[in-house]
């Protein structure tokens, strides 16, 4: 084998697991989600053909007869059967108009009733198998769930959905406050830690701690701190602030979560900045001091401009993260008016069973994040990423 072929072969051997995995779990799903966003995909409907029922009982219930009663004939029973009602009420499956028409036209009533009278009807059968057995034609319409293509209905609905806009506004509000505040705190801490102090490692470790904790556990801890008789209100009471029910009050709930978010990330970003600061030669500061520059001037005119790549990196990462904040909202936000977009996507998909609509919102969030990232990328040199 030629060296080049062998290298290609090993290249694919080494890379194929990760290529396959990313194709299956990231790239194809992106296109699937795009497809969903133009349909009315509903997880309940998606399972309906797999759903098992008892045809014997359902038919007996519908007709009001037991198969072993005397004097029943197929012809006699056929007068009692109403296919549409039977599917809807006794089988209990939600079919669209086209499917109802199909069943009405092609259900082999005679065969069904004959099996019923002979006691040959199964006592448990998935719907798709039932249709395959008793429809004379068109049973392929009941084999695989195909969500209805609704064109731009989801996006249209989104534009008029008050809660979507509230959620997007909240996500923006969250990011626009959290990102600058955490960045500023992080830069200030880094500047302070960049002085010749002892125990730098200790400070770095402690400041890093909040960012490695589980957001679920940390949310519970902050829930305790934020309760009305809790420690935060007691401490604020010392300076005369009236107790607030931080998480129950719609005006303070989101800011309370924001403060917690800043607490978890500021120290972590400080470490990024400290690394950046340590690469700034001290001679620059010495020169500035000779020129009589004070702390303020040095901070704004030397430190911040030289930290620009890190500041932009941190604000982009922070912004992308904040726009998608989920765990903390899930645990701490009770009022629907305080939720963020990613939480609204979760609610629609997994609580309301509207996966098509949820996918449309996810697409919108994607576009918003993409647009913001593009704007920020224009401002930052590429090498700051990797």
């Amino acid at each position: 084998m030629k060296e080049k072929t062998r290298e290609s072969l090993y290249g694919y051997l080494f890379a194929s697991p990760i290529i396959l995995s990313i194709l299956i779990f990231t790239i194809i799903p992106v296109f699937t989600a795009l497809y969903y966003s133009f349909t009315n995909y509903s997880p309940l409907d998606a399972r309906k053909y797999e759903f098992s029922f008892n045809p014997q009982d359902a038919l007996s219930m519908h007709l009001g007869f037991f198969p072993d009663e005397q004097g029943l004939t197929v012809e006699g029973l056929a007068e009692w059967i109403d296919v549409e009602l039977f599917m809807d009420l006794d089988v209990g499956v939600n079919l669209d108009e086209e499917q109802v028409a199909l069943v009405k036209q092609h259900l082999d009533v005679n065969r069904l009733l004959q099996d019923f009278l002979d006691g040959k009807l199964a006592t448990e059968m998935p719907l798709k198998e039932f249709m395959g057995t008793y429809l004379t034609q068109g049973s392929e319409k009941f084999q695989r769930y195909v969500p209805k293509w609704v064109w731009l209905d989801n996006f249209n609905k989104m534009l008029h959905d008050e809660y979507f806009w509230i959620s997007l506004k909240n996500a923006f509000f969250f990011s626009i406050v959290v990102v600058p505040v955490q960045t500023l705190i992080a830069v200030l801490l880094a500047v302070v830690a960049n002085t010749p102090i002892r125990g730098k490692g200790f400070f770095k470790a402690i400041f890093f701690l909040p960012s490695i904790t589980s957001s679920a556990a940390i949310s519970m801890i902050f829930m305790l701190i934020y309760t009305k008789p809790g420690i935060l209100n007691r401490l604020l009471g010392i300076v005369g602030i009236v107790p607030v029910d931080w998480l129950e009050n719609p005006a303070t709930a989101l800011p309370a979560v924001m403060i917690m978010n800043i607490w978890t990330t500021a120290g972590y970003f400080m470490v990024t900045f400290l690394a950046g600061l340590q690469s700034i030669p001290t001679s620059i500061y010495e020169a500035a001091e000779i020129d009589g520059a004070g702390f303020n001037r040095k901070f704004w005119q030397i430190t911040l401009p030289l930290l620009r790549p890190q500041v932009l990196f941190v604000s982009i990462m922070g912004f992308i993260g904040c726009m998608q904040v989920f765990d903390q909202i899930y645990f701490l936000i009770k009022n629907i008016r305080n939720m963020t977009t990613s939480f609204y996507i979760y609610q629609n998909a997994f609580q309301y069973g509207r996966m098509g609509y949820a996918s449309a919102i996810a697409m919108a969030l994607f576009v918003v994040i993409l647009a913001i990232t593009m704007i920020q990328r224009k401002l930052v040199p590429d090498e700051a990423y990797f």
Partner: protein
Amino acid sequence: MTVKTKLIFAYIALGIYVLISLFPFVWSGLIAFTPVNFVDEQGNKQGVDIMEWPPEFKLFPLRFFGAPPTLESFAKVFEITPFARWILNTLLYAGLVTIGHLVLDSLGGYAFARLKFPLKNFWFLLFLSTLMIPGHVTLIPVYNLMVNMDFINTYWGLFLPKLTGVFGLFLMRQFFMGIPHSLEEAAKMDGASIPRRFFTIILPISRPAMAALGIYIFLGTWNDFLWPLLITSQKEMYTLTAGLNFFRSSYYTIWQYMMAASLMITLPMVAVFLGAQKYFVESGAASGVKG
């Protein structure tokens, strides 16, 4: 300002932020060790009010909120929930995902850093473009895939979609690209095959990068909440975070239990972090953990 006053100012500022960083842990710890009720010196059973103000702390004898500290809330968590099972599930989930990343990301990273194969650039750019896709976009299709494969409430459903990732691939690729070619050239001259070069030359010197990636993935998976929330609906299959979510719906009024459970989820990762700090703070992994 003299150098000395500057330093004093720095210590004060950093000290205040140390207090802010540690306070939630300390406070939840105090509550977790406080009993729900206790028998006082007169033999009367007393409830403990953890919201009392000012709180009564004493060193001799040790008293939290006027009561002797105990471990009973921690024991109670194991009693009223399958907490041990949740720990096992979380260890399996985080462990398998970490192993998956270490093996597959490093294999892939090596291929993308050092080997030439057709369509390499195409795949690379395709992967690069996925970095900006929010997790919520792929969540629904991947969840449906798991449902169709009958993977709900199974370990397969938990870890299979998480086994590799573009971030880990890029991290390893970046690291391998930094290794001088000359290291491999000699072995190549001696006729060593590609796998042999990878396993005997590249892997042994990649330990720091692997450690950083492994710790970062283990931590992220241990703390992961949304995916276990979706994939598990049976109590026995919960991970710690999903279990905490279930636990709070029934016991949220008993703060002692809640804090004991929360701390038991948090502290193992604090230990991991403190043990492996050098990989963390100094590695490239530190530049993209969470937002």
